[in-house]
């Protein structure tokens, strides 16, 4: 049995220099809230295990280390003495500097050969107490014991057993561990996926970079190849240039030969020019000669023309005189005569036509007049106002509507007569009632006489009204009579109008107003037409007579004229035509004769002038020839031709000079001679044009190659601008692969850890259950006084108990609350013993707070019983436990009152 014997707190929480002595059995430490009960409990734990967090790979203090540091400062530590099978031990700790010393409590010597725990401290607690901090907390250190309800307690029991099965009582949950591993695996999975994705991306980029690098290398190789080809072509170009220079030498030589030839031509022409220049005339002199010759030619031509014109004018004059003589008889007539004769003839001809036309018009007119007259005679005679009269009569024949007022008057008359009738009846009644009333008044009731008054009044009123109504009726009747008389008169007038209208229609031969209107309209139109025709007939007749008279007069005049010129034996038309012609001839001849005579004279004068001019010009020409000492104009022309030729020669000479200059342009003769001299003696014939062509082709090829090279260079530049470093990408890939491999290793490790823990949990479960079964059964039997001596812990940690009253196994939850509590406590104790392997003190810290008095009493009884064989330290804030114990087990426990300590 292990017992905690003494506690000394140098400084711990609220305690300072405080000492407790504990008994080996039941100890009750009482104190209210904040009295320090839990502090004492924590002190014991801290003294045994220190403040390090359990199971961490490195030292890390728990929060309690700061929490229990003395408030007022000073020493922070204490002593704990305990007894175990190996003797009595004193532990001294300084929490401030985390030092611990373990002594033999009997002789005070340090115990030196203790093994160290994971914090580097003497592992006395595990050795002597048989448990570590976690087991201490989860088994022998019990806080609130159970829960309020029985069901909750049963669940607590199962949880307890499950924890034991998984962790052996240490509180370390395999299930929790598996959850943590699973979570880590999920996160690692995600990291692997990310890593895989990154790898793929980098591999893709690397492949692309590799392709680009290879492409760049290929392009570089191509560049070198092009460079070599260019170099070859340029070599060829140099060779062709050399050939071209050779060709240039030959060309220079040829040029020089040509130059010499040109110079010879030039000199020859110069000699000829000089010769011609000596036998020539000046151009201005020649021009004068030519002008003179041109004038002579013109003058001769003019002379010829003018002579011919003069002869013709003479001939014309003669003809005209003869003509005038032949037509002397027409002397007395002129154009007017002709006009008059023509108009007279026209008049004759046209007059006849006109008369014929007028006559036929008159005949047509007469026919029409007869026709219209016939139509008119078929119609009745209509006065101009016939239609108005008919319309008036028709209006009179319209049925007169009965005046509306007649109906109104009739209706009112009927009403008044009805009223009159009623009044008469009333009056009769009233008159009848009067005597009756009097009779009654006389016979029966005198007071009835009073009725006579209103009766009389009524009679008077009725009478008045009757009079009025009568008067009204008379008035109405008079008005009605008047209206009726008017109606009768109008009716009579209507009938009269109807008769007259009928007579009118009958005379007109129509049956209706529309027919009358049509017929009347026709009559009016025909009448107007007849009047117009008569007027026209009169006019045409007068016109015809006038034409006849005029025509006769004109015929007489015409005959007289024709007789005077001897044309009276011809037909009129023919005679007139002859007269016209002859008269025209005569008049024209007379008119043109003067003109011809004038023209003749003018022509004579001009011809004489032309002859004189010509003679003068010819004299001048003779003088000029004498000056040149030539005999004929041909010789003069020859001289002039010499001059022209010399001018031409001058131009030819100038052209030759120009050609020579052009040939020498760009190169002087000396350099040409040098070039020509450079021609090798054995140079073969070569075509300069051929070399030039080849050079041109070569230049094109070179340009094309340069362009190709340039393009390739551009492509390279473009590639290099975006070419990533292949080496860096490779390094990045290697790093990612290493990391990925590392992650995969970790994944394998996680999976191995999971599987291992799972297997272990199942194994432990199957191992511990039977052992627990035995221990719990034994304890329960003891605790329940033998009532329950058999129980079964199932694989799911449920507990079945043999109920003696029933004789079969029942679930724990079917037992009473108190019994369940006992089972729970028994399980806690059994588990503690199972795990620690011995009778360790039990620390109960406010464990029964939720218990009612009955359950408390039961549990306290159990504690008293257990206190016989093991140390129990009950820390409580409730005085009822003290009171209860005082009754249950007086003197069989040790009480420590923290509130009343000094």
């Amino acid at each position: 049995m292990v017992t905690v014997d003494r506690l000394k707190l140098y400084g711990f929480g609220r305690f300072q220099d405080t000492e407790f002595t504990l008994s080996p059995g039941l100890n009750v430490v009482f104190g209210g809230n904040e009295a320090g009960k839990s502090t004492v409990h924590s002190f014991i734990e801290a003294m045994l295990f220190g403040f390090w967090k359990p199971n961490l790979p490195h030292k890390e203090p728990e929060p309690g280390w700061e929490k229990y540091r003395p408030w007022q400062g000073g020493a922070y530590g204490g002593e704990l003495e305990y007894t175990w099978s190996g003797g009595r031990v004193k532990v001294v700790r300084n929490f401030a500097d985390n030092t611990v010393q373990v002594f033999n409590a009997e002789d005070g010597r340090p115990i030196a050969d203790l093994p160290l725990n994971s914090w580097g401290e003497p592992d006395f607690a595990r050795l002597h107490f048989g448990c570590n901090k976690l087991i201490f907390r989860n088994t022998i250190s019990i806080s609130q014991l159970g829960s309020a309800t029985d069901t909750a307690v049963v669940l607590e029991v199962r949880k307890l057993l499950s924890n034991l099965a998984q962790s052996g009582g240490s509180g370390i949950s395999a299930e929790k561990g598996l959850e943590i591993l699973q979570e880590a695996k999920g996160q690692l999975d995600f990291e692997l996926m990310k890593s895989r994705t990154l790898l793929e991306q980098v591999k893709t980029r690397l492949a692309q970079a590799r392709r680009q690098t290879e492409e760049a290398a290929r392009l570089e190789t191509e560049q070198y190849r092009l460079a070599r080809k260019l170099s070859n072509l340029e070599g060829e170009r140099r060779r062709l240039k050399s050939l071209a220079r050779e060709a240039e030498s030959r060309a220079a030589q040829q040029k020089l030969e040509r130059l010499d030839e040109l110079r010879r031509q030039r000199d020859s022409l110069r000699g000829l020019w000089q010769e011609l220049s000596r036998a020539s005339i000046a151009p201005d002199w020649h021009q004068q000669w030519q002008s003179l010759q041109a004038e002579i030619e013109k003058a001769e031509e003019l002379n010829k023309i003018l002579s011919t014109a003069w002869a013709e004018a003479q001939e014309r004059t003669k003809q005209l005189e003869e003509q005038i003589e032949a037509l002397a008889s027409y002397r007395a007539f002129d154009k007017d005569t002709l006009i008059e004769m023509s108009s007279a003839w026209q008049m004759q001809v046209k007059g006849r036509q006109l008369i014929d036309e007028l006559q036929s018009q008159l005949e047509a007119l007469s026919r029409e007049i007869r026709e219209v007259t016939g139509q008119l005679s078929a119609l009745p005679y209509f006065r101009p106002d016939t239609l108005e009269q008919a319309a008036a009569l028709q209006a009179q024949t319209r049925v007169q509507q009965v005046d509306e007022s007649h109906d109104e008057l009739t209706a009112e008359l009927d009403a008044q007569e009805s009223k009159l009738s009623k009044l008469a009846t009333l009056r009769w009644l009233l008159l009848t009632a009067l005597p009756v009333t009097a009779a009654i008044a006389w016979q029966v009731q005198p007071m009835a006489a009073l009725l006579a008054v209103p009766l009389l009044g009524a009679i008077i009123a009725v009478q008045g009204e009757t009079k009025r109504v009568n008067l009204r009726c008379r008035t109405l009747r008079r008005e009605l009579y008047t209206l009726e008389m008017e109606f009768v008169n109008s009716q009579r007038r209507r009938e009269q109008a109807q008769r007259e209208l009928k007579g009118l229609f009958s005379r007109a031969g129509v049956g209706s107003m529309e027919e009358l209107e049509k017929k009347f309209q026709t009559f009016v139109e025909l009448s107007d037409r007849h009047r117009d025709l008569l007027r026209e007939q009169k006019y045409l007749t007068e016109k015809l007579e006038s034409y006849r008279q005029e025509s006769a007069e004109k015929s007489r005049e015409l005959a007289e004229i024709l007789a005077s010129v001897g044309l009276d034996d011809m037909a009129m038309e023919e005679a007139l035509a002859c007269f016209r012609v002859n008269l025209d001839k005569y008049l024209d001849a007379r008119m043109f004769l003067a003109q011809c005579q004038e023209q003749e004279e003018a022509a004579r004068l001009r011809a004489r002038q032309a002859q004189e001019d010509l003679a003068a010009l010819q004299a001048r020409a003779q003088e000029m020839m004498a000056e040149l000492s030539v005999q004929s104009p041909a010789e003069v022309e020859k001289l002039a031709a010499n001059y022209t030729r010399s001018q031409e020669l001058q131009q030819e000479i100038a052209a030759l000079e120009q050609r020579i200059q052009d040939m020498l342009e760009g190169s002087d003769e000396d350099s040409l001679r040098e070039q020509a001299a450079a021609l090798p003696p054995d140079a073969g014939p070569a075509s300069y044009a051929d070399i030039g062509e080849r050079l041109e082709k070569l230049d094109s090829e070179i340009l094309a190659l340069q362009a190709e090279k340039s393009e390739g260079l551009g492509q390279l530049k473009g590639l290099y601008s975006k070419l990533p470093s292949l080496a860096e990408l490779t390094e990045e890939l290697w790093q990612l692969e290493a990391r990925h491999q590392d992650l995969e290793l970790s994944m394998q490790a996680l999976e191995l850890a999971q599987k291992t823990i799972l297997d272990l949990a199942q194994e432990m479960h199957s191992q511990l259950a039977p052992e627990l079964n035995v221990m719990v059964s034994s304890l329960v039997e003891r605790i329940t006084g033998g009532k329950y001596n058999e129980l079964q812990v199932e694989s799911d940690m449920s507990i079945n108990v043999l109920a003696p009253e029933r004789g079969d196994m029942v679930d724990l939850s079917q037992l009473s609350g108190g019994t369940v509590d006992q089972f729970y406590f028994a399980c806690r104790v059994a588990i503690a013993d199972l795990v620690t392997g011995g009778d360790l003190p039990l620390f109960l810290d406010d464990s029964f707070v939720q218990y009612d008095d009955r359950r408390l009493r039961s549990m306290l009884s159990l504690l008293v019983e257990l206190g016989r064989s093991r140390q129990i330290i009950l820390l409580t804030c409730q005085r009822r436990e003290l009171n209860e114990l005082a009754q249950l087990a007086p003197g069989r426990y040790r009480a420590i009152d923290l509130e009343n300590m000094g």
Partner: protein
Amino acid sequence: MGRIKVVHTADLHLGAPCRGLPPSIGRQRRKDYMQTLAKISEICKEEQTDLLLIAGDLWEEQYVTRPLVDFVADQFRRIPETKVVIAPGNSDFNHPNSFYREYPWPDNVHIFHEPHLSSIWIPHLNARIYGCAWRQERGGLDWEQLKDSAGAQVVVVAYGTPEDLAIPSSILELSNLAYVALGGAHEHVVWSPKMLAPGSPEPLDFSCRQGHGILKGSIGTAAAALEFVSVARRRFYTLDLDTDGCAAEEEVAQRILDAVEALAPAENLFAVRLAGQAKWDVLKVQDYLDGVFYISIAQSAGTGYDIETIKKEHSRGVVGRYIAAIEQTQCPAEVAARALRFGLDALLAGRVEAW
């Protein structure tokens, strides 16, 4: 026959990626390789070297670009008096489209394009240089033709080991053999006084332990007088560091800085393995490591728990049984170690950090 001044190098691996290093450091290392080549060129210029022998793997074919080749050519152009002789290796394999074939190399560069032995004659040195490009098949080279060069000094440049190249001993015993310059070994190797490999002039990764440089000196039929000259810009260091006693990452970082202080941390690369019980937040430790060119930190494969103590403390519980089960499981050690840590973290700490 006179002495010939040579510089012998190989395995520069210009442009190669650096496994295990981040791209930013890799980028700097590639610059370092180029600077080393420039340094070699400078040495040749200063020493007025007759021959610069490059025995393979000058660059990494997959990663070479024209700008890089331009740089290499420029370095060779700077030493027009030095004949640069290159025998391509397996990393700068001389395929038909290789820059070795197409690039307009300066006149002082000769490259052995073919995988069979050929030679060039250097009249002013009275030397015939034999060489070949790397071939996959072992041997098969016509070494007998070297015997035709009587009267001249014979130098051989090739990539591979003597066994790979199958150099007959009769050739190695030729009296006019001046030197055999080999490449392909990343560390300096001496097969014989006249047959050496210089190793890579720059260390390539953390497996490189020895110093790195070139062979410089003179060769001749009498003997080869070459010295190993370090030209490496940086070095790689691997350190194990015990972190027991450290309370926080800052202390761990300080311990690291103390350990590397004497090793020019601003210039070099370090791989540190942290040992001890505790597990540290490596990223937090890195944050405190200012002024170090590159340092990678790995933790030992421990769980951070005192396994034996925990086994005892939890012998009856799931934790103790778990530890025992993992220890007995048949699986790779790294998986078991991690499984142990994850399981204990889940059961004891209530949280697992699996990456």
